[in-house]
């Protein structure tokens, strides 16, 4: 049993990637006391170099998106689907097909989704941290002194 606890601590596990992301978003959530201050704040000059990221949004849009994704991880896909159906009336375009994958494909699919999820989560964790720092800059804390 101890072995399993140790391995959970390994840097690259999905558990840790997930926890880091949730932690970053919780930190963002707790820091951003007045989310409306993020409205119409354009994304950082630096961020825009990351091609087209959240292109159509402002920082507030990013904030809402990150919280929504955190909730999806914590509460699961079922609720996420329900919310999206209510909102848009359609299921997302990347809907999984209902074809049962064969046994060998299962392993490939596992690795594909695991790696993909890890990549997305890592990127979104950086986003959350950047947003938190940007907010702090906006309201004048954590900078060169008040």
């Amino acid at each position, binding site marked *: 049993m101890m072995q399993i606890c140790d391995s959970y601590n390994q840097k690259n*596990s999905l558990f840790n990637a997930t926890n880091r992301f949730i932690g970053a978003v919780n930190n963002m959530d707790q820091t951003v006391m007045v989310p409306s201050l993020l409205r119409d704040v354009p994304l950082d000059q630096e961020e825009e170099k990351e091609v087209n990221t959240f292109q159509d949004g402002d920082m507030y849009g990013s904030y809402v998106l990150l919280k929504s994704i955190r909730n999806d991880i914590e509460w699961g896909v079922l*609720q996420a689907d329900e919310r999206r159906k209510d909102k848009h009336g359609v299921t997302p375009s990347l809907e999984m097909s209902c074809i049962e994958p064969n*046994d060998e494909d299962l392993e*490939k*699919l596992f690795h594909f989704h695991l790696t993909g999820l890890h990549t997305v989560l890592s990127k979104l964790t950086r986003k959350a941290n950047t947003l938190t720092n940007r907010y702090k800059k906006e309201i004048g804390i954590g900078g060169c002194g008040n």
Partner: protein
Amino acid sequence: MQSADAKLSQSSLQLALRRYSSVVRDMEQTILLPSLLRDVPYDEAADCEAADNSMDLYEYYLMLKAIKNTVESGLIPHDDAKAKSQAALHKGLEPLLEAQPEALFHFHLRGLFTVMATLAKKSQNLTEKYLDIIGVSH
């Protein structure tokens, strides 16, 4: 309302992964003689096409264990061939990573949920099959 909440909490990512780990651990603890699984076809009722390509139970057992180890300990398998073959797949999705990370996130999350649930079920089936082989009623 209570059952809806239970359904939601059951489907959370970490629970799904933990459930898989637990099912595979159960399989490992039950199957004391994995060699008995050699050359036993996974699904006797499989159609001809599947039967040609399918693994025997022993290979299946190894695969399920390897996946459990990946979930629990490390993310990136040390298999370069595997990584290369998937690199193209991920590259194709890169624009989506930038433009619609939420959609990509849901795609992978749903995919992972589906795969883990299927693998957990198959682990349980394999354990039961082993018990059949050694003649233990379950």
